[in-house]
């Protein structure tokens, strides 16, 4: 480097320092404060401001400790069966759930498949949608995390904008439920209720344990292994089907070489996927 270049660089650095320290000449223009529209003001008053409304996104919030935006896939490197929630020990089942559990074991011994509702195009639902053998896209915004499963493009939204769960008389029951998240230290704690209790199972391809309308799932999301893996600790209760808490912890790896594509259970799918309509299936 020549001495004249060194002098010019030093002068430029000194000028930048002076400008940065000058209150009337900021080094970079501040972003203008967002002015909510009348529609947003009215929506906010009604408690219905959507997660993607500019006024909601523009609100000041503490920076989150991590960002889950990525494609993820259940880590099966240590155990090919790690995607299952049916890993023992099972919780103590209620008589209603034990009846289904025993029926599935009986038919399994006969080489049959008991009530495989997912195979008949019913949604997998939470918790299984998180560990299906398909990648899951997660997109994090300040107000919500949007998840799109590669499995049937099932959508799950975790709201982070401070809203509470919907009133019981207006909640729309779904297979993925209604999820509200809150940052607590270095973790995201997600509370999910509002499940549909029909054709909803805790797992697939194993002993049948129903998931009911009283299913309540608390997930603790955390980044582990030097930010390479997402860990979710599930604590699940459903007094109609098992006693106490059912705990399970899963890890997910980033997928950097595959996309989420359009996947639908179309009306003609099972006409050609003949095992789903074969005599191996037990529907009742």
């Amino acid at each position: 480097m020549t001495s004249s270049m060194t002098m010019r660089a030093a002068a430029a650095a000194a000028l930048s320092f002076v400008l940065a320290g000058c209150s009337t000449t900021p080094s970079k223009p501040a972003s203008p404060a967002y002015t909510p529209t009348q529609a947003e003001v009215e929506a906010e008053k009604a408690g219905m401001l959507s997660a993607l409304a500019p006024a909601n996104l523009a609100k000041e919030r503490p920076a989150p400790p991590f960002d889950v935006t990525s494609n993820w896939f259940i880590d099966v490197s240590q155990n090919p069966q790690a995607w299952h929630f049916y890993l023992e020990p099972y919780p103590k089942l209620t008589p209603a759930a034990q009846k289904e559990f025993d029926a599935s074991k009986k038919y399994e011994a006969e080489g049959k498949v008991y009530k495989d509702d997912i195979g008949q195009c019913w949604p997998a639902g939470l918790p299984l949608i998180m560990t299906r053998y398909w990648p899951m896209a997660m997109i994090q915004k300040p107000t919500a995390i949007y998840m799109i499963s590669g499995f049937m493009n099932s959508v799950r939204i975790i709201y982070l904008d401070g809203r509470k769960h919907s009133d019981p008389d207006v909640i729309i029951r779904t297979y993925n439920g209604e999820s509200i998240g809150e940052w607590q230290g270095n973790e995201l704690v997600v509370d999910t209720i509002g499940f549909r209790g029909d054709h909803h199972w805790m797992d697939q391809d194993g002993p049948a344990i129903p998931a009911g309308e009283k299913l309540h799932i608390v997930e603790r999301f955390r980044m582990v292994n030097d930010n390479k893996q997402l860990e979710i600790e599930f604590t699940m209760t459903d007094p109609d089907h098992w006693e106490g808490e059912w705990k399970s912890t899963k890890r997910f790896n980033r997928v950097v070489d595959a996309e989420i594509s359009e996947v639908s259970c179309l009306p003609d799918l099972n006409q050609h996927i003949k095992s789903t309509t074969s005599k191996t299936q037990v529907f009742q």
Partner: protein
Amino acid sequence: MSSMKKALLWSVLMAVALVAPALAHHSPAAFDRTKKVTLVGTVKEFRWQNPHTWIELEVPDEKGKQVVWGVELTSPTYLVRAGWKSNIIKPGDKVTIVVNPVRSGEPSGIFVSLTLADGRELLERPARLGTTESK
């Protein structure tokens, strides 16, 4: 590749396929993974789609009657990684397909391997995405 090496590679691939769940929307418990059926027949239809690609194959039974077998495969996402294309087979092609059959004895099975008329053999790639090495 020597026949011994080929046999070893085949057994390794099959071991991986057996422990890795298929990328299926349904339970794989309907299939008898301990049995293999070799189907020599004519492609009736080949559908390249999500969540499963499928093949319908006309296979003559022992009395010469044509029976349509349904063969289920994984998603095109993984077939592409194993060298497949949407036009790799078409109606009328003579092929050999090995399947694990359904336990009920009906003409249906889950894919194990495909041998084309020119002798090329194609497998599936097990759905095993994501590693801790990904950044």
